């Protein structure tokens, strides 16, 4: 029971947030934190646990976003009905892209994922069916509650919270299963993992597909909340970078790392956008760049890693160390 005390306390706090801080700006900010936490948590599965740093995850985000709004535009269904479609497309793309690219190691994998993402962005920019360069819009006026289009961000907040809890529950189960152990081993040393019977290629692919599916869910939710998507906001490289940095800042490979990262970076970005207007967008890039450098230099494990290293048990005795 004691073990559950902290999570329940945190959950209570998060659930109470939009009621205590109830201005439109604060509620919207809260919803955005949760939304980006979902996306970054999804990235965390393959980028954090398995150590395969994808910089092309926006493709899966785009699948979800475009799936939702294309379903509305072409079929007249509520955008949420397009979510399964987006998920399916993202898993398919992950399988096709993953087989050749996951063989690459380190930076080469990252670069290949960037290439794929840019390619997809260019294709969509030139596809009339997906709105080309103009983009797609959701319902201007909600036709029913199923459109999930509200003037207040409060319903979105709780919807995103539910999805985040589901995502983290799934990740937690994976983390404590054989697959979670195997992914961490692959991150540590793929060669050693394989020598111990880990089918590294297969596990990486599964992680990639699972991660893609959850990222697509985040993409659909984004499109539903904003009601608009274009190649920049749905397939721009900055979204991939955001997922990566949020997870890395909080702690890649830690269950709550992406949430911590999102809780720090999303307010930072929103505040800078508010203070500097459209010029704030440039400032966001500067801040991200600085965070990447600081993380790489001082704390590659992220904030939760710092915390955990202070709590971890020490080796029994300094003298016994050499004897082992």
């Amino acid at each position, binding site marked *: 029971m004691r073990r559950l005390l902290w999570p329940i306390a945190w959950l209570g706090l998060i659930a109470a947030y939009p009621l205590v801080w109830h201005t439109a700006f604060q509620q919207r900010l809260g919803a955005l934190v949760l939304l980006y936490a979902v996306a970054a948590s999804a990235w965390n599965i393959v980028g954090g646990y398995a150590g395969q740093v994808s910089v092309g995850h926006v493709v899966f985000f785009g699948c979800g976003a475009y799936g939702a709004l294309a379903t509305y535009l072409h079929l007249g269904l509520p955008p949420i009905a397009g979510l399964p479609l987006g998920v399916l497309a993202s898993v398919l793309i992950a399988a096709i892209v993953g087989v050749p690219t996951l063989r690459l190691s380190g930076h080469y994998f990252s670069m290949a994922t960037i290439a794929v993402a840019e390619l997809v962005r260019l294709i969509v920019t030139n596809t009339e069916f997906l709105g080309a360069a103009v983009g797609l819009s959701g319902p201007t006026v909600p036709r029913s509650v199923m459109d999930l289009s509200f003037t207040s961000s409060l319903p979105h907040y709780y919807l995103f919270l539910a999805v985040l809890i589901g995502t983290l529950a799934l990740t937690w189960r994976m983390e404590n299963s054989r697959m979670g*152990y195997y992914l961490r081993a692959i991150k540590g040393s793929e060669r050693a993992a394989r020598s*111990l019977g880990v089918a590294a290629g297969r596990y990486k692919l599964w992680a990639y597909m699972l991660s893609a599916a959850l990222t697509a869910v985040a993409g659909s939710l984004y499109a539903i909340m904003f009601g608009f998507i274009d190649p920049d906001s749905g397939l721009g490289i900055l979204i991939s970078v955001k997922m990566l940095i949020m997870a890395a800042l909080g702690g890649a490979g830690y269950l709550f790392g992406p949430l911590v990262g999102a809780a720090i970076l999303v307010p930072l970005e929103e505040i800078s956008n508010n203070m500097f207007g459209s010029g704030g967008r440039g400032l966001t890039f500067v801040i991200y760049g600085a965070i990447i450098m600081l993380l790489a230099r001082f704390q590659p494990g992220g904030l939760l890693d710092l915390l955990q290293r202070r709590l971890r048990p020490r080796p029994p005795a300094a003298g016994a160390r050499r004897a082992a």
Partner: protein
Amino acid sequence: MLLEARGVSMAFGSFKAVDDATIAVREGEILGLIGPNGAGKSTFFNCLTGDLTPTLGSVHFRGQDVTGLPPEARAALGIARSFQVPLTFEGMSVLDNVMIGAFLRTASTAEARDRARRVIERVGLGPFADVSASSLGTPGRKRLEIARALATEPRVLLLDEAMAGLTPTEVRQAIDLVRSIHASGITLVIVEHIMEVIITLAERVVVFHQGREIANGSPAVVTRESQVIEAYLGKRAAKAAHGATP
């Protein structure tokens, strides 16, 4: 035959690191693989474990051709190995490191944890089970390599210079560990630089030189062969040795 290499050659470009090696490992023995630096021992070793696919020839395990199988499939069949430079999973605890091996035979986390704890006790890392593997020194890491491999419940364990970098005391402790592993019914193939280790442990040794197998037999006999002395010490030493002990 438990593990067999038939006419294995491994070429990197025009350079033949291993040239037509045919070696059989009998069930229950300790086979030593020795030779000077660059003799092709490690390359040959990697052909046995699946880290490399030989350019020519085939590898057989318990009668099955495993030449085309990747390392993970060979591990599942019962071939385990250690790495010369330990490839520790740095971010994980010692226990978690060993659990990766244990997961090969069980999908249950609790069961893998139990099995891993037993193996950790067996190799003498008990007090270190819950510390981060990155805090271990070289001897600890070498033991951890062996523990992980043992957790996969292998039939044959291939040790790649498991004692390099250890102090004489640590070497003796490691020799005891290898003996106890052998006593539990696991066949061993050891690549080793330290002659003392080979002579005390191996029942049979194969000597490699320039990618070829130049001698094969009991350690006492092989170390007297002039070809072997020549490979290690040069022609003059070989002549001198034979002059001294005709």
